[in-house]
């Protein structure tokens, strides 16, 4: 009882003995250290499992052949690998330019004003929108009218997820460019659009690239928005208007299947995705760090 009362009155701690206070401080220090350590251990645990199980599944035919039926030896996921690259590339081509221009408006033309404020508000809500909801939206928007699942529908879903992310990072990065640079360009007679594209964009180049890379990293590991837009395919499929093989849905289907060789392939695909995403992230981080001292 007494202990509970003590714990409920934080401000009386000064009345406690110095030894008691130091003991509590020590306990908290140890707890904090072990919590951080626990986070690190979890990360290493996940990476270790993905690496060990993934490496066991990866061989030459994993990258070169099409999926084989369960139970049959060999087979690979080359179609899913290519499919994911295509879908991500198309999504990037749609989402990044629009997001960058929207971010440019917010940073350069709409620093204040109701329209820009509203866009910022809505954009942040969109960033938080669950990716599966975007999948449902694209299903009703594209899959139903087109009469079937397609690679392009998945790419649109990923682009919708990218757009608000790119918009926000572009705005943030452009805002870091000092106004004196803009003023000097304008003073030399450069029109505004030239000032933005040739001075502000150039000054913020590193940050913009970092932002785009992080956005690509984020969507390339997305599964939920592809589940009922692109679906999956066991065949070689390059047509954007047909269901398309992709790594993440393949992982989902294979992992949930009862066949151990499919589950093994799912680990192999997991290793590919994890490596790609972490590599993109670390590179982006490295670029950001390079830029900071200037």
């Amino acid at each position, binding site marked *: 009882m007494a202990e509970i009362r003590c714990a409920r009155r934080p401000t009386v701690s000064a009345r406690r003995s110095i030894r008691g206070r130091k003991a509590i401080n020590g306990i908290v220090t140890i707890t904090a250290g072990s919590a951080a350590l626990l*986070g690190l251990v979890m990360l290493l645990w996940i990476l270790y499992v993905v690496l060990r199980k993934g490496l066991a599944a990866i061989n030459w035919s994993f990258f070169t052949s099409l999926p084989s039926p369960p139970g049959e030896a060999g087979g690979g996921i080359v179609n899913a690998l290519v499919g994911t690259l295509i879908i991500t590339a198309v999504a990037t081509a749609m989402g990044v330019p629009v997001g960058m221009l929207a971010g440019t408006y917010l940073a350069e033309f709409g620093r204040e004003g109701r329209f820009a404020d509203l866009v910022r508000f809505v954009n942040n809500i969109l960033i938080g929108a669950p990716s599966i909801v975007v*999948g449902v939206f694209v299903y009703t928007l594209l899959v139903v009218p087109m009469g079937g699942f397609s690679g392009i529908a998945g790419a649109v879903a990923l682009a919708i997820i990218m757009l608000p992310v790119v918009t926000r990072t572009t705005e943030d990065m452009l805002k870091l460019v000092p106004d004196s640079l803009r003023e000097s360009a304008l003073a030399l007679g450069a029109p505004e659009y030239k000032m933005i594209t040739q001075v502000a964009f150039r000054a913020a180049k590193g940050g913009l690239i970092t932002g785009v890379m992080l956005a690509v990293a984020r969507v390339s590991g997305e599964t939920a928005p592809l589940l009922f837009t692109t679906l999956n395919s066991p065949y070689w499929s390059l047509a954007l208007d047909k269901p398309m093989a992709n790594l993440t849905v393949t992982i989902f289907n294979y992992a949930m299947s009862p066949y151990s060789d499919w589950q093994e392939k799912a680990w192999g695909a997991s290793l590919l*995705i994890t490596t790609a995403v972490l590599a993109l992230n670390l590179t982006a981080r490295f670029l950001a760090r390079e830029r900071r001292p200037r």
Partner: protein
Amino acid sequence: MAVKLDSSSRVSMSNRDRANKWSANKPFKYLCAACCALVLALMVGLFVKLIANSTLSMRKLGLGFLTSAEWDPVMGKFGALSSIYGTLVSTAIALIIAVPMSIVIALFLVELAPKRLSSFFGTSIELLAAIPSIIYGMWGLFIFGPFMAEYIEPFLHRYFGFLPIFQGTPMPVGMLTAGVILALMVLPFTSSVMRDVLLMVPPVLKESAYGLGATTWEVTKDVSIRYGIRGIVGAVFLGLGRAIGETMAVTFVIGNEHKISASLFAPANSIASTLANEFTEADTSLYLSALVELGLILFLITAIFQAVAQTWLRYVVRGGRP
């Protein structure tokens, strides 16, 4: 000759620029504005499309959709209660674990660890956020779920079994496993915001507390956390929004059963996991419409949380402390 050429070219440049001022400036601005408008259109489109495609289930099922837990597609019975319950409970478990943990992690990173160690730990924890959710799902299904059933759940059952939430047989997939994995996924976000909050505390405030003889924990508890309490609340909101819509990891480990059980060990489901599992199987228009309505509910919940969090954070910045 050279000078003449040079000057003429310069003149032509500035002429072009002057011409461009009228020709390209406005179109560029309007193009940028149009992209902004697209962001707004997307939001409106999301709502319109989701509402339009769920009118059938809204009309047929009415409010019963929200209050019934019975989900039987074959009989045409759809009740969202177990999905909503699962979403809220798994999110609650995630936050109960992640919020205190991220406060102490932030404390460790800001106040206790040497700078090098701190940046190493910080980067590692942020990398946890980058790992795709499907990887968490794989790890949860094959590794962490069995670990929970083998060690953690029997432990909870033995020592806290008097609570109904820790009764029943330990199982690798279920609400608790899903909640713990969600906590792990939310942790990087909340702890990095909390770290920023602790870093924002003016050193002079902390120094004066240290000067009075306070210990590190007392300074954190009575000065830093009180100073940054609003930012911490914002971080909790962000984590909440994140956990509520998480799909793949939850789908792998929650068990996917349309049932409300008192025990946290039991399989359950969430809105996102129901959508992920059943959307492509929906064979009737009512089934599909009910699923879209689930999506609409999820979107509404996250949009409201985001809006509240944003308004809150803006209020903090504007009306906040100096």
